Protein backbone atom coordinates (compact mmCIF):
# COMPACT_ATOMS: atom_id res chain seq x y z
CA UNK A 1 0.00 0.00 0.00
CA UNK A 2 1.49 3.35 -0.93
CA UNK A 3 1.61 6.36 1.38
CA UNK A 4 -1.65 8.28 1.48
CA UNK A 5 -3.03 11.68 2.45
CA UNK A 6 -5.89 12.05 4.93
CA UNK A 7 -8.28 12.53 2.01
CA UNK A 8 -7.11 9.39 0.24
CA UNK A 9 -7.52 7.42 3.45
CA UNK A 10 -11.03 8.63 4.20
CA UNK A 11 -12.24 8.25 0.62
CA UNK A 12 -10.64 4.77 0.35
CA UNK A 13 -12.48 3.70 3.47
CA UNK A 14 -15.74 5.07 2.07
CA UNK A 15 -15.21 3.58 -1.40
CA UNK A 16 -14.36 0.18 0.05
CA UNK A 17 -11.14 -0.02 -1.97
CA UNK A 18 -7.84 1.81 -2.09
CA UNK A 19 -8.22 4.95 -4.17
CA UNK A 20 -5.72 7.64 -5.07
CA UNK A 21 -5.87 11.23 -6.27
CA UNK A 22 -7.30 11.52 -9.77
CA UNK A 23 -9.50 8.43 -9.65
CA UNK A 24 -13.27 8.62 -9.68
CA UNK A 25 -14.82 6.73 -6.80
CA UNK A 26 -18.33 5.98 -5.60
CA UNK A 27 -18.27 6.61 -1.84
CA UNK A 28 -20.68 5.85 0.99
CA UNK A 29 -21.59 8.98 2.90
CA UNK A 30 -21.99 9.22 6.67
CA UNK A 31 -24.15 12.30 6.71
CA UNK A 32 -26.21 14.34 4.25
CA UNK A 33 -27.00 18.00 4.97
CA UNK A 34 -29.50 20.24 3.27
CA UNK A 35 -30.34 23.89 3.86
CA UNK A 36 -33.56 25.79 3.20
CA UNK A 37 -31.89 27.30 0.14
CA UNK A 38 -30.87 23.98 -1.43
CA UNK A 39 -33.33 21.40 -0.08
CA UNK A 40 -36.50 22.44 -1.93
CA UNK A 41 -34.64 21.77 -5.16
CA UNK A 42 -33.19 18.53 -3.74
CA UNK A 43 -36.74 17.37 -3.02
CA UNK A 44 -37.67 18.10 -6.65
CA UNK A 45 -34.73 15.98 -7.79
CA UNK A 46 -35.57 13.25 -5.25
CA UNK A 47 -39.08 13.02 -6.67
CA UNK A 48 -37.93 13.12 -10.27
CA UNK A 49 -35.43 10.35 -9.51
CA UNK A 50 -38.29 8.24 -8.20
CA UNK A 51 -37.05 8.26 -4.60
CA UNK A 52 -39.24 6.24 -2.25
CA UNK A 53 -37.32 6.27 1.01
CA UNK A 54 -34.18 7.69 2.63
CA UNK A 55 -31.17 5.37 2.82
CA UNK A 56 -30.99 6.14 6.54
CA UNK A 57 -33.23 8.91 7.93
CA UNK A 58 -30.96 9.39 10.95
CA UNK A 59 -28.18 10.48 8.60
CA UNK A 60 -30.16 13.20 6.83
CA UNK A 61 -30.44 16.66 8.41
CA UNK A 62 -32.19 19.76 7.09
CA UNK A 63 -31.54 23.18 8.60
CA UNK A 64 -33.44 26.42 7.98
CA UNK A 65 -30.63 28.92 8.00
CA UNK A 66 -30.68 31.09 4.87
CA UNK A 67 -34.27 32.25 5.38
CA UNK A 68 -34.29 32.56 9.13
CA UNK A 69 -36.88 33.91 9.55
CA UNK A 70 -38.60 33.59 6.16
CA UNK A 71 -39.13 37.10 4.80
CA UNK A 72 -41.93 36.27 2.39
CA UNK A 73 -44.66 33.79 1.69
CA UNK A 74 -42.41 32.22 -0.93
CA UNK A 75 -39.59 31.42 1.47
CA UNK A 76 -42.07 30.28 4.11
CA UNK A 77 -43.42 27.87 1.48
CA UNK A 78 -39.88 26.48 0.94
CA UNK A 79 -39.75 25.73 4.66
CA UNK A 80 -43.12 24.05 4.63
CA UNK A 81 -42.15 21.86 1.74
CA UNK A 82 -39.01 20.66 3.54
CA UNK A 83 -40.84 20.16 6.84
CA UNK A 84 -43.45 18.06 5.09
CA UNK A 85 -40.80 15.98 3.30
CA UNK A 86 -38.82 15.44 6.50
CA UNK A 87 -41.92 14.43 8.43
CA UNK A 88 -42.92 11.98 5.72
CA UNK A 89 -39.50 10.32 5.45
CA UNK A 90 -38.40 10.61 9.07
CA UNK A 91 -35.46 13.01 8.70
CA UNK A 92 -34.54 15.67 11.23
CA UNK A 93 -35.35 19.35 10.69
CA UNK A 94 -33.61 22.15 12.55
CA UNK A 95 -36.17 24.88 12.18
CA UNK A 96 -35.85 28.68 12.02
CA UNK A 97 -33.64 30.04 14.77
CA UNK A 98 -31.62 26.89 15.42
CA UNK A 99 -28.58 27.64 13.31
CA UNK A 100 -26.45 27.06 10.24
CA UNK A 101 -26.54 23.50 8.87
CA UNK A 102 -22.98 22.22 9.31
CA UNK A 103 -22.53 24.19 12.53
CA UNK A 104 -25.51 22.27 13.91
CA UNK A 105 -24.09 18.94 12.75
CA UNK A 106 -20.89 19.72 14.66
CA UNK A 107 -22.77 20.85 17.76
CA UNK A 108 -24.98 17.77 17.65
CA UNK A 109 -21.91 15.55 17.58
CA UNK A 110 -22.58 14.14 14.10
CA UNK A 111 -19.37 15.54 12.57
CA UNK A 112 -16.99 12.76 13.51
CA UNK A 113 -13.31 12.33 12.71
CA UNK A 114 -12.81 9.98 9.77
CA UNK A 115 -16.29 10.46 8.33
CA UNK A 116 -17.55 11.70 4.97
CA UNK A 117 -20.15 14.47 5.06
CA UNK A 118 -21.77 16.04 2.02
CA UNK A 119 -23.87 19.16 2.34
CA UNK A 120 -25.74 21.17 -0.24
CA UNK A 121 -23.88 24.28 0.88
CA UNK A 122 -20.38 25.15 -0.26
CA UNK A 123 -19.25 26.04 3.27
CA UNK A 124 -19.83 22.48 4.49
CA UNK A 125 -16.01 22.32 4.30
CA UNK A 126 -16.02 24.23 7.61
CA UNK A 127 -16.36 21.07 9.71
CA UNK A 128 -13.24 19.52 8.16
CA UNK A 129 -11.75 21.21 11.24
CA UNK A 130 -12.95 18.08 13.06
CA UNK A 131 -10.67 15.76 11.04
CA UNK A 132 -13.26 14.64 8.53
CA UNK A 133 -13.90 14.95 4.82
CA UNK A 134 -16.74 17.44 4.49
CA UNK A 135 -17.60 18.90 1.12
CA UNK A 136 -20.21 21.04 -0.54
CA UNK A 137 -22.29 19.64 -3.37
CA UNK A 138 -25.45 20.63 -5.19
CA UNK A 139 -29.06 19.67 -4.66
CA UNK A 140 -29.05 16.77 -7.15
CA UNK A 141 -26.11 15.17 -5.34
CA UNK A 142 -27.90 15.20 -2.00
CA UNK A 143 -31.05 13.89 -3.65
CA UNK A 144 -29.17 10.87 -5.03
CA UNK A 145 -27.34 10.46 -1.71
CA UNK A 146 -30.58 10.57 0.26
CA UNK A 147 -31.80 7.63 -1.85
CA UNK A 148 -28.60 5.61 -2.18
CA UNK A 149 -26.25 6.77 0.58
CA UNK A 150 -23.70 7.28 -2.19
CA UNK A 151 -21.91 10.11 -3.94
CA UNK A 152 -19.49 10.20 -6.86
CA UNK A 153 -16.15 11.77 -6.06
CA UNK A 154 -13.08 12.60 -8.04
CA UNK A 155 -10.42 11.77 -5.44
CA UNK A 156 -8.64 15.08 -4.92
CA UNK A 157 -4.99 15.93 -4.65
CA UNK A 158 -3.98 17.55 -1.39
CA UNK A 159 -2.14 20.76 -0.60
CA UNK A 160 -0.12 20.54 2.59
CA UNK A 161 -0.46 23.71 4.66
CA UNK A 162 1.94 23.91 7.58
CA UNK A 163 1.24 26.49 10.28
CA UNK A 164 4.35 27.39 12.24
CA UNK A 165 5.56 30.07 14.65
CA UNK A 166 3.85 31.75 17.56
CA UNK A 167 0.41 33.28 17.45
CA UNK A 168 0.57 36.95 18.38
CA UNK A 169 -2.05 38.93 20.30
CA UNK A 170 -5.03 39.95 18.13
CA UNK A 171 -4.08 37.47 15.42
CA UNK A 172 -7.37 35.91 14.45
CA UNK A 173 -7.89 32.66 12.56
CA UNK A 174 -9.67 34.93 10.07
CA UNK A 175 -6.34 36.63 9.36
CA UNK A 176 -4.75 33.23 8.77
CA UNK A 177 -7.60 32.25 6.46
CA UNK A 178 -7.51 35.51 4.49
CA UNK A 179 -3.74 35.23 4.08
CA UNK A 180 -4.20 31.71 2.72
CA UNK A 181 -6.86 32.95 0.28
CA UNK A 182 -4.42 35.63 -0.87
CA UNK A 183 -1.53 33.17 -1.23
CA UNK A 184 -3.45 30.37 -2.88
CA UNK A 185 -5.85 32.53 -4.91
CA UNK A 186 -9.54 32.12 -5.77
CA UNK A 187 -9.01 28.87 -7.63
CA UNK A 188 -5.58 27.81 -6.42
CA UNK A 189 -7.04 24.85 -4.56
CA UNK A 190 -9.38 23.84 -7.41
CA UNK A 191 -10.23 20.13 -7.07
CA UNK A 192 -7.78 19.91 -4.18
CA UNK A 193 -8.02 19.51 -0.45
CA UNK A 194 -6.14 21.59 2.11
CA UNK A 195 -4.60 19.38 4.79
CA UNK A 196 -3.24 21.22 7.81
CA UNK A 197 -0.04 20.35 9.62
CA UNK A 198 2.35 22.08 11.97
CA UNK A 199 2.98 22.94 15.58
CA UNK A 200 0.91 26.14 15.52
CA UNK A 201 -2.36 24.24 15.01
CA UNK A 202 -2.60 23.70 18.75
CA UNK A 203 -2.83 27.48 19.25
CA UNK A 204 -6.33 27.39 17.73
CA UNK A 205 -9.49 26.08 19.34
CA UNK A 206 -11.82 23.85 17.37
CA UNK A 207 -14.14 26.78 16.60
CA UNK A 208 -11.16 28.78 15.38
CA UNK A 209 -10.04 25.95 13.11
CA UNK A 210 -13.53 26.05 11.62
CA UNK A 211 -12.88 29.64 10.53
CA UNK A 212 -9.78 28.54 8.65
CA UNK A 213 -11.50 25.55 7.02
CA UNK A 214 -14.50 27.73 6.17
CA UNK A 215 -12.59 30.04 3.85
CA UNK A 216 -11.04 27.13 1.94
CA UNK A 217 -14.00 27.35 -0.44
CA UNK A 218 -12.83 30.83 -1.39
CA UNK A 219 -9.78 29.02 -2.86
CA UNK A 220 -12.18 26.48 -4.41
CA UNK A 221 -10.91 23.67 -2.17
CA UNK A 222 -13.01 20.53 -2.01
CA UNK A 223 -12.33 20.07 1.70
CA UNK A 224 -10.03 21.48 4.38
CA UNK A 225 -8.98 18.97 7.00
CA UNK A 226 -7.24 19.40 10.34
CA UNK A 227 -5.61 16.57 12.26
CA UNK A 228 -7.37 15.25 15.35
CA UNK A 229 -5.80 16.24 18.67
CA UNK A 230 -6.68 17.07 22.26
CA UNK A 231 -8.82 20.04 21.19
CA UNK A 232 -10.82 17.75 18.90
CA UNK A 233 -11.48 15.25 21.70
CA UNK A 234 -12.40 18.07 24.03
CA UNK A 235 -14.92 19.46 21.54
CA UNK A 236 -16.44 16.04 20.92
CA UNK A 237 -16.65 15.09 24.58
CA UNK A 238 -20.27 15.00 25.64
CA UNK A 239 -21.41 15.63 22.07
CA UNK A 240 -20.43 12.81 19.84
CA UNK A 241 -23.01 10.39 18.63
CA UNK A 242 -21.29 7.38 17.11
CA UNK A 243 -17.73 6.31 16.74
CA UNK A 244 -14.92 8.49 15.59
CA UNK A 245 -11.99 7.16 13.62
CA UNK A 246 -9.25 9.82 13.59
CA UNK A 247 -7.11 9.82 10.46
CA UNK A 248 -3.51 10.94 10.02
CA UNK A 249 -1.58 11.40 6.82
CA UNK A 250 1.23 8.95 6.11
CA UNK A 251 4.71 10.37 6.52
CA UNK A 252 5.57 10.38 2.85
CA UNK A 253 2.13 11.04 1.41
CA UNK A 254 2.23 12.99 -1.87
CA UNK A 255 1.08 16.59 -2.02
CA UNK A 256 0.51 18.69 -5.10
CA UNK A 257 1.85 21.75 -3.29
CA UNK A 258 3.28 22.62 0.12
CA UNK A 259 2.78 25.96 1.82
CA UNK A 260 4.20 27.10 5.12
CA UNK A 261 2.69 30.03 6.98
CA UNK A 262 4.68 31.54 9.84
CA UNK A 263 2.18 33.06 12.27
CA UNK A 264 4.83 35.06 14.10
CA UNK A 265 5.08 37.32 11.07
CA UNK A 266 1.44 37.57 10.17
CA UNK A 267 -0.52 40.76 10.83
CA UNK A 268 -4.27 41.41 10.57
CA UNK A 269 -5.72 41.24 7.09
CA UNK A 270 -8.63 42.79 5.19
CA UNK A 271 -10.25 41.60 1.96
CA UNK A 272 -11.23 44.58 -0.18
CA UNK A 273 -14.32 44.55 -2.44
CA UNK A 274 -15.40 42.51 -4.45
CA UNK A 275 -13.30 39.36 -4.20
CA UNK A 276 -12.33 37.44 -1.05
CA UNK A 277 -8.80 37.02 -2.42
CA UNK A 278 -8.35 40.79 -2.76
CA UNK A 279 -6.48 40.69 0.56
CA UNK A 280 -4.16 43.37 1.96
CA UNK A 281 -2.46 43.92 5.33
CA UNK A 282 -4.90 45.99 7.40
CA UNK A 283 -2.55 49.00 7.33
CA UNK A 284 -3.50 49.50 3.68
CA UNK A 285 -7.20 49.72 4.46
CA UNK A 286 -7.09 51.67 7.72
CA UNK A 287 -9.18 54.84 7.60
CA UNK A 288 -11.74 53.64 5.04
CA UNK A 289 -15.13 54.87 6.30
CA UNK A 290 -17.66 52.18 7.20
CA UNK A 291 -21.39 52.61 7.71
CA UNK A 292 -22.30 49.04 8.58
CA UNK A 293 -20.46 46.44 10.64
CA UNK A 294 -21.74 42.88 10.43
CA UNK A 295 -20.78 40.32 13.08
CA UNK A 296 -22.06 36.89 12.20
CA UNK A 297 -22.15 34.04 9.65
CA UNK A 298 -20.61 30.57 9.57
CA UNK A 299 -17.21 32.29 9.54
CA UNK A 300 -17.49 34.86 12.33
CA UNK A 301 -20.67 34.10 14.25
CA UNK A 302 -19.37 31.97 17.14
CA UNK A 303 -18.91 32.77 20.83
CA UNK A 304 -15.28 33.74 20.71
CA UNK A 305 -15.91 36.00 17.71
CA UNK A 306 -18.43 38.07 19.66
CA UNK A 307 -16.14 38.23 22.69
CA UNK A 308 -13.25 39.47 20.58
CA UNK A 309 -15.38 41.99 18.73
CA UNK A 310 -16.75 43.41 21.99
CA UNK A 311 -13.33 43.62 23.62
CA UNK A 312 -11.91 45.43 20.60
CA UNK A 313 -14.89 47.77 20.44
CA UNK A 314 -14.34 48.63 24.09
CA UNK A 315 -10.61 49.21 23.61
CA UNK A 316 -11.41 51.57 20.76
CA UNK A 317 -13.71 53.78 22.83
CA UNK A 318 -16.62 51.60 23.89
CA UNK A 319 -19.30 53.34 21.85
CA UNK A 320 -20.67 52.95 18.35
CA UNK A 321 -19.41 55.72 16.09
CA UNK A 322 -22.11 58.05 14.79
CA UNK A 323 -23.61 56.74 11.57
CA UNK A 324 -22.52 53.12 12.08
CA UNK A 325 -25.08 50.35 12.07
CA UNK A 326 -23.86 47.31 14.00
CA UNK A 327 -25.61 44.07 13.08
CA UNK A 328 -25.13 40.89 15.05
CA UNK A 329 -26.29 37.39 14.08
CA UNK A 330 -25.26 34.29 16.06
CA UNK A 331 -24.50 31.20 13.95
CA UNK A 332 -26.55 28.90 16.17
CA UNK A 333 -28.85 28.88 19.17
CA UNK A 334 -26.07 27.32 21.24
CA UNK A 335 -23.94 30.38 20.44
CA UNK A 336 -26.82 32.78 21.12
CA UNK A 337 -27.54 31.14 24.48
CA UNK A 338 -23.89 31.26 25.50
CA UNK A 339 -23.51 34.97 24.74
CA UNK A 340 -26.82 35.73 26.39
CA UNK A 341 -25.83 33.82 29.53
CA UNK A 342 -22.46 35.54 29.84
CA UNK A 343 -23.90 39.02 29.31
CA UNK A 344 -22.23 39.71 25.96
CA UNK A 345 -25.47 40.06 24.06
CA UNK A 346 -26.85 42.57 26.56
CA UNK A 347 -23.73 44.71 26.19
CA UNK A 348 -24.09 44.73 22.42
CA UNK A 349 -27.75 45.67 22.75
CA UNK A 350 -26.87 48.48 25.13
CA UNK A 351 -24.50 49.80 22.46
CA UNK A 352 -27.40 49.92 20.03
CA UNK A 353 -26.58 46.85 17.99
CA UNK A 354 -29.29 45.27 15.88
CA UNK A 355 -29.45 41.64 17.02
CA UNK A 356 -31.15 39.42 14.45
CA UNK A 357 -32.52 35.89 14.51
CA UNK A 358 -29.93 33.09 14.53
CA UNK A 359 -28.87 31.89 11.07
CA UNK A 360 -27.13 33.29 8.00
CA UNK A 361 -28.60 36.74 8.54
CA UNK A 362 -27.38 39.47 6.22
CA UNK A 363 -24.61 37.29 4.73
CA UNK A 364 -26.15 36.65 1.33
CA UNK A 365 -29.01 39.12 1.29
CA UNK A 366 -31.71 36.51 1.95
CA UNK A 367 -32.73 37.52 5.46
CA UNK A 368 -31.56 40.31 7.65
CA UNK A 369 -30.35 43.82 7.13
CA UNK A 370 -29.53 44.97 3.61
CA UNK A 371 -26.97 47.78 3.19
CA UNK A 372 -27.99 50.98 1.41
CA UNK A 373 -26.56 52.16 -1.92
CA UNK A 374 -22.95 53.24 -1.64
CA UNK A 375 -22.50 51.87 1.87
CA UNK A 376 -19.23 50.34 2.98
CA UNK A 377 -19.76 47.25 5.08
CA UNK A 378 -17.09 45.67 7.25
CA UNK A 379 -18.00 42.07 7.90
CA UNK A 380 -16.80 38.91 9.63
CA UNK A 381 -18.20 36.85 6.71
CA UNK A 382 -16.40 34.93 4.00
CA UNK A 383 -17.67 36.47 0.75
CA UNK A 384 -17.70 40.05 -0.46
CA UNK A 385 -18.97 39.57 -3.99
CA UNK A 386 -20.88 42.44 -5.50
CA UNK A 387 -24.55 42.21 -4.45
CA UNK A 388 -23.72 39.49 -1.94
CA UNK A 389 -25.65 41.23 0.84
CA UNK A 390 -28.50 42.12 -1.48
CA UNK A 391 -27.33 45.47 -2.86
CA UNK A 392 -24.96 45.61 -5.83
CA UNK A 393 -23.95 49.19 -5.07
CA UNK A 394 -22.69 48.46 -1.56
CA UNK A 395 -19.04 47.53 -0.98
CA UNK A 396 -18.12 44.73 1.40
CA UNK A 397 -14.81 44.46 3.26
CA UNK A 398 -13.93 41.29 5.19
CA UNK A 399 -11.90 41.19 8.38
CA UNK A 400 -11.54 39.56 11.79
CA UNK A 401 -14.11 40.08 14.56
CA UNK A 402 -11.59 42.24 16.44
CA UNK A 403 -11.04 44.51 13.44
CA UNK A 404 -14.82 44.73 12.97
CA UNK A 405 -15.36 45.59 16.64
CA UNK A 406 -12.69 48.30 16.66
CA UNK A 407 -14.02 49.77 13.42
CA UNK A 408 -17.58 49.91 14.76
CA UNK A 409 -16.27 52.25 17.46
CA UNK A 410 -14.37 54.52 15.10
CA UNK A 411 -16.49 54.45 11.95
CA UNK A 412 -13.37 53.70 9.94
CA UNK A 413 -11.45 50.51 9.26
CA UNK A 414 -9.26 50.27 12.34
CA UNK A 415 -6.34 48.06 13.22
CA UNK A 416 -7.38 46.08 16.30
CA UNK A 417 -3.81 46.23 17.59
CA UNK A 418 -4.02 50.01 18.05
CA UNK A 419 -4.47 50.37 21.83
CA UNK A 420 -6.95 53.20 21.73
CA UNK A 421 -7.82 54.54 18.34
CA UNK A 422 -7.66 58.30 17.89
CA UNK A 423 -11.13 59.67 17.41
Amino acid sequence: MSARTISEKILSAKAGREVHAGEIAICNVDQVLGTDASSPMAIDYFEKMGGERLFDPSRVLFAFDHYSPPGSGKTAAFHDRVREFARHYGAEVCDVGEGISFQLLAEHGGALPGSLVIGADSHTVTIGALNLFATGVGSSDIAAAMITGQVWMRVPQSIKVTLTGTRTAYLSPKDVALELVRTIGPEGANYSVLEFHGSAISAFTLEERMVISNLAVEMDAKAAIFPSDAATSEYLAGRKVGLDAPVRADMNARYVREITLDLSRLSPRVALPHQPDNVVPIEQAVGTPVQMVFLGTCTGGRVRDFHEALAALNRAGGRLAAGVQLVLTPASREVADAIRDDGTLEKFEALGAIVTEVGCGACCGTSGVVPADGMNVLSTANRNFKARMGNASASIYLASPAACGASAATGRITDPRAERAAR
Partner: protein
Amino acid sequence: MIKLEGRARRFGDNVNTDYIITSTRKRETIDEQVLKQWLLETVDPAFAASVREGDIIVAGQNFGCGSAMEVAVTVILAAGIRAVIAQSFSRTFFRNAINNGLIPAQCDTSRIEEGDSLAVQLVGAELTVSDFNKELTLSGPPISGVILDILELGGLVPYMKAHRRLIPMKQ
Protein backbone atom coordinates in the same frame (compact mmCIF):
# COMPACT_ATOMS: atom_id res chain seq x y z
CA MET B 1 -21.46 10.93 -28.46
CA ILE B 2 -22.64 14.49 -28.01
CA LYS B 3 -22.31 17.28 -30.56
CA LEU B 4 -23.44 20.88 -30.13
CA GLU B 5 -23.05 24.00 -32.25
CA GLY B 6 -23.63 27.59 -31.28
CA ARG B 7 -22.49 31.15 -30.91
CA ALA B 8 -19.91 32.19 -28.31
CA ARG B 9 -21.03 34.48 -25.50
CA ARG B 10 -17.90 35.79 -23.85
CA PHE B 11 -17.27 36.34 -20.10
CA GLY B 12 -14.17 36.81 -17.98
CA ASP B 13 -12.58 35.12 -14.98
CA ASN B 14 -14.22 34.20 -11.65
CA VAL B 15 -17.85 34.44 -12.73
CA ASN B 16 -19.38 33.26 -9.46
CA THR B 17 -22.79 31.63 -8.99
CA ASP B 18 -24.16 34.75 -7.30
CA TYR B 19 -23.38 36.62 -10.54
CA ILE B 20 -25.03 33.87 -12.61
CA ILE B 21 -28.20 34.33 -10.57
CA THR B 22 -28.36 36.43 -7.42
CA SER B 23 -29.65 35.08 -4.10
CA THR B 24 -32.23 37.83 -3.86
CA ARG B 25 -33.89 36.59 -7.07
CA LYS B 26 -33.65 32.97 -5.97
CA ARG B 27 -35.34 33.88 -2.71
CA GLU B 28 -38.57 34.50 -4.64
CA THR B 29 -38.59 31.34 -6.75
CA ILE B 30 -36.40 28.44 -7.83
CA ASP B 31 -38.29 28.05 -11.11
CA GLU B 32 -35.56 28.37 -13.72
CA GLN B 33 -38.07 29.39 -16.40
CA VAL B 34 -38.83 32.49 -14.36
CA LEU B 35 -35.27 33.10 -13.15
CA LYS B 36 -33.74 33.01 -16.64
CA GLN B 37 -34.81 36.60 -17.32
CA TRP B 38 -32.15 37.65 -14.75
CA LEU B 39 -29.37 35.34 -15.95
CA LEU B 40 -25.98 37.00 -15.32
CA GLU B 41 -27.63 40.39 -14.64
CA THR B 42 -24.92 41.49 -12.18
CA VAL B 43 -22.23 41.10 -14.85
CA ASP B 44 -24.24 42.18 -17.91
CA PRO B 45 -27.81 43.44 -17.44
CA ALA B 46 -28.50 43.15 -21.19
CA PHE B 47 -27.35 39.55 -21.47
CA ALA B 48 -30.54 37.66 -20.60
CA ALA B 49 -32.59 39.43 -23.27
CA SER B 50 -29.98 38.74 -25.93
CA VAL B 51 -29.55 35.00 -25.36
CA ARG B 52 -30.50 32.74 -28.25
CA GLU B 53 -31.23 29.02 -28.04
CA GLY B 54 -27.97 27.16 -28.59
CA ASP B 55 -25.65 29.95 -27.42
CA ILE B 56 -22.51 28.73 -25.67
CA ILE B 57 -21.01 30.54 -22.69
CA VAL B 58 -17.26 31.05 -22.99
CA ALA B 59 -15.37 32.16 -19.89
CA GLY B 60 -11.97 32.44 -18.29
CA GLN B 61 -10.74 30.87 -15.08
CA ASN B 62 -12.82 29.48 -12.24
CA PHE B 63 -16.28 29.66 -13.79
CA GLY B 64 -19.08 29.06 -11.27
CA CYS B 65 -17.11 29.73 -8.11
CA GLY B 66 -18.77 30.61 -4.82
CA SER B 67 -22.03 29.13 -3.64
CA ALA B 68 -22.88 25.54 -4.64
CA MET B 69 -26.44 26.52 -5.55
CA GLU B 70 -27.65 24.38 -8.39
CA VAL B 71 -30.04 26.90 -9.92
CA ALA B 72 -26.91 28.52 -11.35
CA VAL B 73 -26.82 25.53 -13.69
CA THR B 74 -30.54 25.04 -14.29
CA VAL B 75 -30.98 28.73 -15.15
CA ILE B 76 -28.27 28.49 -17.80
CA LEU B 77 -29.98 25.41 -19.25
CA ALA B 78 -33.38 27.10 -19.13
CA ALA B 79 -31.97 29.92 -21.26
CA GLY B 80 -31.22 27.36 -23.98
CA ILE B 81 -27.48 27.11 -23.32
CA ARG B 82 -26.23 23.51 -23.39
CA ALA B 83 -22.48 23.98 -22.87
CA VAL B 84 -20.09 26.25 -21.01
CA ILE B 85 -16.50 26.42 -22.16
CA ALA B 86 -14.03 27.77 -19.64
CA GLN B 87 -10.37 27.83 -18.87
CA SER B 88 -11.30 26.13 -15.59
CA PHE B 89 -14.41 25.42 -13.51
CA SER B 90 -15.13 25.64 -9.86
CA ARG B 91 -15.70 22.10 -8.66
CA THR B 92 -19.23 22.49 -7.33
CA PHE B 93 -20.32 24.09 -10.61
CA PHE B 94 -18.63 21.25 -12.53
CA ARG B 95 -20.52 18.65 -10.46
CA ASN B 96 -23.84 20.42 -10.85
CA ALA B 97 -23.29 20.81 -14.60
CA ILE B 98 -22.61 17.08 -15.04
CA ASN B 99 -25.59 16.18 -12.86
CA ASN B 100 -27.92 18.26 -15.03
CA GLY B 101 -26.47 17.38 -18.43
CA LEU B 102 -24.86 20.78 -19.08
CA ILE B 103 -21.48 20.18 -20.71
CA PRO B 104 -18.61 21.78 -18.79
CA ALA B 105 -15.88 21.88 -21.44
CA GLN B 106 -12.49 22.79 -20.06
CA CYS B 107 -9.98 24.14 -22.57
CA ASP B 108 -7.90 27.15 -23.48
CA THR B 109 -10.54 29.79 -24.26
CA SER B 110 -8.14 32.72 -24.60
CA ARG B 111 -8.60 33.14 -28.37
CA ILE B 112 -12.36 32.66 -28.53
CA GLU B 113 -14.27 35.93 -29.00
CA GLU B 114 -17.88 37.04 -28.56
CA GLY B 115 -20.00 35.82 -31.46
CA ASP B 116 -17.56 33.19 -32.79
CA SER B 117 -19.26 30.16 -34.16
CA LEU B 118 -18.36 27.09 -32.12
CA ALA B 119 -18.82 23.34 -31.94
CA VAL B 120 -18.42 21.20 -28.83
CA GLN B 121 -17.99 17.45 -29.29
CA LEU B 122 -17.76 14.62 -26.82
CA VAL B 123 -16.77 11.35 -28.49
CA GLY B 124 -16.21 8.67 -25.89
CA ALA B 125 -14.20 10.43 -23.22
CA GLU B 126 -12.57 12.81 -25.74
CA LEU B 127 -13.69 16.41 -25.63
CA THR B 128 -13.00 18.85 -28.46
CA VAL B 129 -14.03 22.44 -29.09
CA SER B 130 -13.83 24.00 -32.55
CA ASP B 131 -13.89 27.72 -33.28
CA PHE B 132 -14.79 28.15 -36.97
CA ASN B 133 -13.95 31.87 -37.05
CA LYS B 134 -10.44 31.23 -35.78
CA GLU B 135 -10.00 27.83 -37.41
CA LEU B 136 -9.06 26.49 -34.00
CA THR B 137 -9.51 23.02 -32.60
CA LEU B 138 -9.03 22.76 -28.87
CA SER B 139 -9.10 19.77 -26.60
CA GLY B 140 -9.65 19.45 -22.90
CA PRO B 141 -9.10 16.84 -20.23
CA PRO B 142 -11.18 13.71 -20.95
CA ILE B 143 -14.53 13.18 -19.25
CA SER B 144 -14.67 9.56 -18.13
CA GLY B 145 -16.08 6.99 -15.71
CA VAL B 146 -19.40 7.53 -14.03
CA ILE B 147 -19.22 11.24 -14.93
CA LEU B 148 -19.39 10.37 -18.62
CA ASP B 149 -22.25 7.93 -18.02
CA ILE B 150 -24.24 10.60 -16.20
CA LEU B 151 -23.56 13.23 -18.86
CA GLU B 152 -24.44 10.90 -21.73
CA LEU B 153 -27.73 9.97 -20.13
CA GLY B 154 -28.51 13.69 -19.70
CA GLY B 155 -27.93 14.07 -15.96
CA LEU B 156 -28.33 12.40 -12.60
CA VAL B 157 -32.15 12.19 -12.81
CA PRO B 158 -32.20 9.99 -15.92
CA TYR B 159 -29.17 8.13 -14.57
CA MET B 160 -30.91 7.33 -11.28
CA LYS B 161 -34.08 6.33 -13.11
CA ALA B 162 -32.06 3.92 -15.23
CA HIS B 163 -29.81 2.46 -12.52
CA ARG B 164 -31.39 3.22 -9.10
CA ARG B 165 -27.92 3.64 -7.61
CA LEU B 166 -24.43 4.85 -8.55
CA ILE B 167 -22.45 2.15 -10.29
CA PRO B 168 -18.68 2.11 -9.92
CA MET B 169 -16.92 1.98 -13.28
CA LYS B 170 -14.74 -0.89 -14.24
CA GLN B 171 -11.35 0.80 -13.84
